[in-house]
C-alpha cells in the first residue's frame, strides 16, 4: 500500500496508534482482494445510496456564460446529500469485518458526521461524532440529523473549536479506545493507510463520471474540477482521470476573504510544509509551527491541512490548485440555484465558481466536469446570515 506520496504522507502518530493502523492496513488489504467485500460495497452503493449518480448538463448556466459546457457530477443526489457516504459505507464494512462495535468520526460541515451516523445505524454500530462548537452552531441542521440517527454528538469547544480540534478530540478518543473502536476518517488526510482507503472508496465518483462522459459525449472532459478542503471528493473525481493526461485536473481551495487577508483555508496555495494529524503535508501555520485558525464561509473546507496526495499532484503538476473566495462561491451558489434549479453545498460552490470563471474563455465544444459534491440544504441559514451581513 502507499504510505507516502513523494515527500508527503506517512504515519506521524502516537505509538499507541501504530498497532491499530497496522491492523487496519492488514484488514484493508485482505478486503481489497476479497470479491465478496467489493460486491457488497457496490451493492450497498447501488441499493442504499442510489448510485450511480447522474451527470447533468448545466445548459442554461453554460449558455449564459457563453463558452464551455459545464457538466455536473451529481454527488448531491446521494442518500444523505453528499459524496461522504461512499467512504463511510466502505469504512463501516471494514469495521464490521474487523469486529469493531463502535464508530467515531470528526466532522466539519457535518456531512461526514451524518454519513457516519447513517452507516452506524445501517450496520447496528454505536457512533460518537466530534464537531467543533463553531461548526455545531453554523451547521445546526446536521447536528439534529446525527442525533436523529442515534449518534452522540460531542461539541468541541477548545482552541479554535472547528474541524482540526474535532479531529484532535477524535484522535484522543481513538488512542484510548482503539481495541473496540474504528475511527472513520472523512477525508484523504490523516496517517497512512487512510488517504489511500478514502481515495479508493471515493474513486467510484471519477470512474463513473469517466464512463458517463464517454457514453454521453463520446469523449473525456477537458477539465475535471472539484473543491479541496481535506480533498476527498476531489481525489475521488481525479482518481478516474489520473491516467488520462489530456484531462486537466483542477482542485479549488477555499480563499475565504482572500489569500492576502490571511483569512482563508488554502493550504496548498498559502501554506508551508509541516506535520499534523498523522501526515506530512502543506499546512497553514505560524512561523513557529503552531497551526493557524482557518477561515471559510464553508465549514467543510475550513481545515488547515490537505490530503498528502494533493500536495504530490501539485508538485508533479498533474493537478493545478486554485483559490475561490467566499464572495465568488456565493455568486456561483446563486447562479446554480437560479439557472439550474439546483441548490449546491457551499463547498461544491467553490468548484462551480472556478468553472464559471473558466467557461467564458473556452470554446463551446469544451467540457468542464464539476464535482457537485453535496447539496446545500444545510447551508440555508448560513447563506442568509452571510447575505444579511453583506447588505448592512
Amino acid at each position, binding site marked *: 500500500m502507499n*504510505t507516502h506520496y513523494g515527500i508527503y504522507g*506517512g*504515519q*506521524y*502518530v*502516537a*505509538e*499507541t496508534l*501504530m*498497532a*491499530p493502523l497496522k491492523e487496519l492496513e492488514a484488514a484493508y488489504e485482505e478486503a481489497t482482494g476479497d470479491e465478496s467485500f467489493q460486491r457488497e460495497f457496490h451493492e450497498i452503493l447501488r441499493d442504499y445510496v442510489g448510485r450511480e449518480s447522474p451527470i447533468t448538463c448545466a445548459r442554461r448556466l453554460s449558455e449564459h456564460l457563453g463558452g464551455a459546457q459545464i457538466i455536473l457530477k451529481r454527488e448531491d443526489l446521494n442518500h444523505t446529500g453528499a459524496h461522504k457516504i461512499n467512504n463511510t459505507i466502505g469504512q463501516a464494512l471494514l469495521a464490521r469485518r474487523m469486529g469493531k462495535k463502535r464508530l467515531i468520526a470528526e466532522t466539519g460541515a457535518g456531512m461526514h458526521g451524518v454519513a457516519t451516523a447513517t452507516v452506524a445505524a445501517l450496520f447496528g454500530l454505536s457512533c460518537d461524532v466530534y464537531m467543533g462548537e463553531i461548526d455545531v452552531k453554523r451547521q445546526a441542521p446536521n447536528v439534529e440529523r446525527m442525533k436523529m440517527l442515534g449518534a452522540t454528538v460531542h461539541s468541541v469547544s*477548545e*482552541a479554535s473549536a472547528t474541524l*482540526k*480540534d474535532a*479531529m*484532535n*478530540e477524535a*484522535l*484522543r478518543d481513538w*488512542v*484510548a*479506545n*482503539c*481495541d473496540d473502536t474504528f475511527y472513520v476518517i472523512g477525508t484523504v488526510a490523516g496517517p497512512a493507510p487512510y488517504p489511500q482507503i478514502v481515495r479508493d472508496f471515493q474513486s467510484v465518483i471519477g470512474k463513473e463520471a469517466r464512463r458517463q462522459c464517454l457514453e454521453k459525449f463520446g469523449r473525456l472532459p477537458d477539465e475535471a474540477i472539484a473543491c479541496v478542503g481535506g480533498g476527498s471528493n476531489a481525489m475521488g473525481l481525479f482518481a478516474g482521470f489520473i491516467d488520462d493526461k489530456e484531462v486537466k485536473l483542477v482542485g479549488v481551495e477555499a480563499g475565504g476573504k482572500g489569500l492576502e487577508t490571511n483569512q482563508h483555508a488554502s493550504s496548498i496555495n498559502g501554506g*508551508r*510544509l*509541516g*506535520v*499534523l*494529524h*498523522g501526515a*506530512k503535508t502543506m*499546512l497553514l*501555520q505560524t*512561523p*513557529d*509551527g*503552531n*497551526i493557524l485558525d482557518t477561515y471559510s464561509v464553508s465549514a467543510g473546507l475550513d481545515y488547515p491541512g490537505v490530503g498528502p496526495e494533493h500536495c504530490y499532484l501539485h508538485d508533479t503538476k498533474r493537478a493545478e490548485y486554485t483559490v475561490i473566495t467566499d464572495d465568488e462561491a456565493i455568486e456561483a451558489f446563486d447562479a446554480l440555484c437560479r439557472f439550474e434549479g439546483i441548490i449546491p453545498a457551499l463547498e461544491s460552490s467553490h468548484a462551480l465558481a472556478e468553472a464559471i470563471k473558466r467557461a467564458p474563455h473556452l470554446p463551446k465544444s469544451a467540457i468542464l466536469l464539476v464535482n457537485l459534491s453535496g447539496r446545500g440544504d444545510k447551508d440555508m441559514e448560513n447563506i442568509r446570515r452571510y447575505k444579511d451581513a453583506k447588505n448592512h
Partner: protein
Amino acid sequence: MQRITEAFKKAKRENRGAFVAYVTMGYPTLEQSERAVDDIIAAGADIIELGVPFSDPFADGGVIRTASYKALEQGVTINDVIASAARLRERHPDTAFVLFSYYNLIYSMGLENFAREAARAQIDAVLPVDLPYEERDELLSVIAPRGISFVPLIAPNTTLERVKAFEKGLDNTFLYVITVKGTTGERKNLPPDLAARLEGIRSLTHLPIAAGFGISTREQALEVCKHADGFVVGSRIVKCLSEGRKPCLS
C-alpha cells in the same frame, strides 16, 4: 556528557527509581516555569522533560492542554523553550533535559537548525510524541551527529519485536513505557498487567526503562519502580503549578 545514562546509574546506586518530571514550559509564564524546574530539581528530580506548548496537543489530557494554550497565549515558542533550556543548563550542569514536543514544532524550525540550536542549549534528548519508529530516521540523522539522543515511546500495544527495534542505534536515553492507552493525565489505578509488561520490556533491552502516563502518587511511583528503572510524572506537576503550589506527589 551522558547525563541520562548517569541519572539512571545514580538512581540505581541509591537503590531507587529515577524521577523524570514533565513541565509545560511557558506556564504560567516562561520565568515561572523555569523556577518550577529549579524547584523540582531541588526536590530530587533526575531528568526534566521540557514540554513545548503546541496549538494541537492531540496526545494530551486536559491539564497539559490547558497549560499549553495558556503558554501559547503568551506567545511562547519552541525557540523560547530552547532558550529556557540554555539558561537552566547554566544553573544545573548535571541534570538531564529532554525536549518533549510535537514533531511539527521541531520540523518547522528546519531539522538542521533545530539540531544546532538544541545542541547549543545542551539539550540531552528529544521526545517527539508523534514521531514513531517508522518516521524517526530523518530526525535521528541530524541530531545524532550532534550528540543529542532520542527517547522512544512504548505503548501498551507495542509488540516486543518492535521494542527490540526501537533501541537500535540509541544510547544516553531510556525507553518511555506508556502505562495506559490514552492521553496524558492522572489515573486512579494503573493496569493490573503493568508489572509483567514492564518486566517483559526490561528483559530485552540494554536501555533503562521509565514508566509514565497516569502516575500521580508516591505509591504508584514506588510500585512502578519495582519493575522499572524510573517513573515519569507530568500532569500532576502541571496541576500543582496551576494551583500555585510547589510541585509534589500526593
